[in-house]
């Protein structure tokens, strides 16, 4: 085993060779596919008369276009039905396992991989989706790829990549009430910039990260790409192993758990590993973070004033001006009290069971504000079932939330769940880009799931710490 960071070790373990262009060819341990970015790749494969090299290391689900209200086939949206049918045909022809809605295992690709135990430490994982960085929470080396690269992986189970630098982000301090993993990553992106991570992989470390559950670690790794870093990871530890042991794969193959544990331990970054950069973040000082603009880097603490564009770095001034015009906010104001029309609790960032539990504690016994459209879209069918069994669905519905089926939904507005006109949305998702949630005049305010719950209740961006939590049964 080589030495250095987890990144170095996993890279070396998977390196096939160096290509003539200087890139390394890496073996891919797990290739996740979905309906939006894979059909063209299958088409390219057919054009060349190639077959899927390792269907056994490929796993499919449907998430981006799947309706979350009525899922009867054929889907009412013809385009969605066509994409689903195409995926069904491609996976059937190639013999690829497909967690489709009839299996009870369907969900957002970055939720189901970890659930099923196919996301593991020390694997290389790719998917045609930028939030593939999520899987780094398990100590996997995971990154998003484009469709031509999906073709490469389907055809060869390998990918051509250049090795990147590693930035260690050391997070310390005890999180305040109401502050979560989401707030940590929004703060990291605010501080290092949306392009600060270009050329880097982020290693998240420090006591605060170590104390997070796997879901929190996933929320952080998920948004690495929002900071420009194509991948982010956390070194595997007992928290990781406890999660893995409960998954299908290791329940069915318990001997594998003991067999693989030494490998997982061996890939942890060495104590004396060298990093290209180290950044320290004191998370103990954080308040819940909300965005005021149209990039995920435009965040502030709930009590902080929206910045004067001129006070920002030169290259951020124009972006900030445009963002403030779009969002209709003024410098000097706080985001607290910003009227919202929609509350969206979902996405691969924050739609796992603990996210929904925490939000339910805020919602319980309260009512969604008049004129607010609030809905919960669980990250997977498993999350949905578990939440229903423990009564979370009832809590949300009694408060006036809609309870939906699993999918990406309003995170990117590819199904029927979209903002209309200039609606403002309190969203637990990952991107506040103009038009992201389906309306080009729509306004997205990113925040943690409890803050979304609070906004749904009050009808405006609110400090969740002002709302008492209610114990769940």
């Amino acid at each position: 085993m080589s030495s250095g960071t987890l990144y170095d070790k996993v890279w070396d373990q998977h390196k096939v060779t160096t290509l003539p262009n200087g890139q390394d060819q890496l073996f891919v341990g797990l290739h996740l596919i979905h309906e939006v970015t894979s059909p063209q790749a299958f088409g390219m494969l057919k054009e060349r008369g190639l077959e899927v090299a390792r269907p056994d290391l490929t796993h499919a689900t449907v998430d981006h276009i799947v309706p979350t209200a009525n899922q009867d086939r054929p889907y009412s949206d013809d385009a969605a039905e066509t994409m689903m049918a195409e995926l069904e045909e491609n996976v059937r022809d190639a013999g690829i396992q497909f967690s489709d809605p009839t299996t009870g295992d369907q969900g957002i690709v970055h939720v189901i991989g970890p659930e099923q135990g196919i996301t593991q430490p020390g694997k290389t994982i790719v998917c045609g989706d930028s939030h593939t960085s999520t899987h780094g929470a398990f100590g996997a080396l995971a990154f998003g790829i484009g469709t031509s690269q999906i073709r490469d992986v389907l055809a060869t189970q390998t990918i051509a990549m250049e090795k990147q630098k590693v930035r260690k982000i050391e997070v310390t301090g005890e999180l305040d009430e109401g502050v979560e993993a989401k707030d940590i990553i929004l703060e990291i992106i605010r501080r290092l910039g949306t392009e600060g991570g270009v050329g880097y992989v982020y290693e998240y470390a420090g006591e605060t990260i170590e104390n997070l559950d796997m879901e929190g670690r996933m929320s952080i790794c998920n948004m690495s790409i929002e900071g420009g870093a194509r991948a982010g990871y956390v070194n595997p530890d007992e928290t990781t192993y406890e999660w893995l042991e409960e998954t299908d794969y290791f329940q069915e193959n318990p001997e594998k758990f003991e067999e693989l544990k030494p490998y997982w331990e061996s890939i942890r970054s060495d104590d004396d590993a060298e990093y290209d950069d180290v950044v320290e973040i004191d998370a103990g000082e954080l308040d819940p973070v909300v965005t005021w603009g149209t990039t995920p880097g435009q965040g502030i603490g709930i009590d902080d004033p929206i910045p004067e564009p001129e006070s920002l770095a030169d290259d951020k001034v124009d972006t900030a001006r445009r963002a403030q015009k779009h969002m209709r906010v003024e410098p000097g104001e706080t985001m607290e009290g910003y009227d919202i029309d929609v509350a969206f609790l979902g996405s691969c960032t924050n739609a796992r069971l603990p996210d929904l539990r925490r939000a339910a504690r805020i919602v319980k016994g309260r009512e969604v504000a008049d004129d607010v459209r609030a809905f919960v879209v669980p990250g997977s069918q498993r999350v949905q079932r578990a939440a229903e069994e423990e009564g979370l669905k009832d809590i949300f519905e009694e408060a006036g939330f809609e309870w939906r089926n699993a999918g990406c939904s309003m995170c990117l507005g590819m199904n029927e769940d979209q903002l209309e006109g200039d609606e403002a949305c309190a969203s637990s998702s990952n991107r506040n880009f103009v038009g992201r949630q389906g309306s080009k005049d729509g306004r997205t305010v990113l925040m943690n799931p409890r803050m979304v719950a609070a906004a749904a209740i009050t009808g405006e961006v609110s400090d969740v710490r002002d709302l008492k939590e209610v114990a769940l049964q």
Partner: protein
Amino acid sequence: MTDPTEDIPSVDYVEGSGIPIRGNDIDTDQIIPARFMKVVTFDGLGEFAFFDLRFDDEDNEKDHPFNEERFQDSNVMVVNANFGCGSSREHAPQALMRWGIDAIIGESFAEIFAGNCLALGIPTVTADHETINALQQWVDDNPDGEIEVDVRAETVTYGDNEVNVSVDRAQREALVEGNWDTTALMKANQNAIEETASQLPYLDQTRSDLEADD
């Protein structure tokens, strides 16, 4: 099986007229809104490039360089910082390519976007803020003016100016040598791929044994 490398030209040089797209952090949702991705091929995406920046709710044209008559034949796009951030959708460079873009010069690019461009043979070359500003201004003043992007020499020539630009090493090698289509290149290393796979502790090695018995 046809050898796809036979048809792959090197892209060491792009020339044509420019089109300036100003602003930092232009994300792939801006370049191609998600609703246009409900398709199973990339054909026809060109007309949707920058759609929401180009058209209002009634489909009336808004001010945008992609709508301007004087830029309709342009093929070299000049952009600012962190262009192509956000989603990994290859639909974004596919839409730009199908609109007519052959090369992009910018302050910086998001990684996945640059990788997707490379897979399509579109160079993404970088220069500093002042150089880009000057070039954008020149393009505005000279919409028909010729720009030459020399990937091999890492220069951009326009008017009487020649400026140095940077091209990522692997990108330069791939474009200049014409081996930016990696499928065949990597497929050729089948033995090495299997050797690497056989060393991975988490893979069920019985599978390849079974195949060997076939």
